[in-house]
């Protein structure tokens, strides 16, 4: 029986930026990522990117307990996984070799 080929994983610029921020600051909320990115990430679509990264296995998330004093919905915290860290390292080190124009 032929072995199933592993799916090729990709890393977009926004995903790379999110991983850099999470590795630098640990666990962050979506809005904290937007603020830390200096508006390179957009408020509405950051959650779309985070959801996609979670599906790929680059990040994990957990629900924080709902705030007791003011109520409201529990917020979601995001954290880079070991796979995400390896992907970032591979793209950071490998892309200047594959596409030298990127390094300039």
């Amino acid at each position, binding site marked *: 029986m032929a072995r199933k080929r592993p799916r090729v994983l990709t890393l977009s610029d926004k995903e790379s930026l999110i991983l850099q921020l999470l590795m630098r600051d640990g666990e962050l909320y*979506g809005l904290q990522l937007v603020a830390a990115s200096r508006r390179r990430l957009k408020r*509405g679509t950051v959650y779309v990117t985070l959801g996609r990264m979670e599906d790929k296995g680059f990040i994990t998330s957990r629900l924080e307990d709902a705030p007791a004093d003011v109520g*409201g919905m529990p917020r979601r915290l995001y954290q880079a996984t070991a796979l995400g860290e390896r992907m970032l390292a591979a793209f950071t080190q490998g892309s200047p070799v594959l596409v030298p124009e990127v390094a300039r």
Partner: protein
Amino acid sequence: MTRPGVRLRSFFAGWCGEKMMRQRVDPAIADLQAEYAEAGREGRTWRRRRVLVAGYIALARLSVYCAWQSVGEVVREWTAGDSRALVRLLAACGLFTTAIAAFNIWNSAQSYFALPEVHRSVLLFLVPSSLATAVPLGLMFGLLWRIDGGASRAARSAAVACVAAASLVTLANIGWITPASNQSFRTEVFAATGGVGDVRKGQSELTFSELGQRVRAGRTMDAGEGPDVRIAYYSRWALVLSPVLLAVVALSVRRRARSRRMTIGVGTMALWWLAFMVGPRLAQFAVGRSM
């Protein structure tokens, strides 16, 4: 303190799947609520308002993405139950669309009934233009009639499919079909009433591409062509988007009683007609003043 996004979450829950709610919608609303509460604790009223506006704009962008994803999910996960729900919803939308289209045709054809030279079959050319407004309104009334607070997943899937189909039908109809049928109608009536030669196309007989070319070429006011072509062009695009907007209205009131939903639908229809009647005139006035 009232928490923002509660009603919006209920609206999203009506047509988004569980994964989309968990990964995209709930985190966005939770962050908005937290930021809003923090601004309230600090006593910064204007910051609270800015946070609210920015948060709702972000949710509006997210809704466009979620709508697109919903269509994809509906197609991938289609079941026999969805087909039955779709048939029932299409029947309701079809009835309302037919009634509105019939009224439109009767209204448009009044002046031609008095002309004995014009054969009644020519009035068939008025059908596409009557559907331009009948399809979006028929969709809205069909959704108001069939989709309520307890609608099943199948019914919601059918609603998404109907909205997508109505938008595509409206795009094809007013972009290309209606201009061609309008021109055919004018040519037939002109010939039947003794006219000789070709009938020059007016703005209503230009396709999307032809109107777009004129807008890009900067041909605005053109003698004999009536209102600014830009107004005609963007009005048509507004009509293409109207099935989505009217569906949003219909789905946002689904938890109310049917009689109340239909009343809201009639009110929305009146506002919609007003917008399409008055809007281009206001725009024409503004363009006239700026030239």
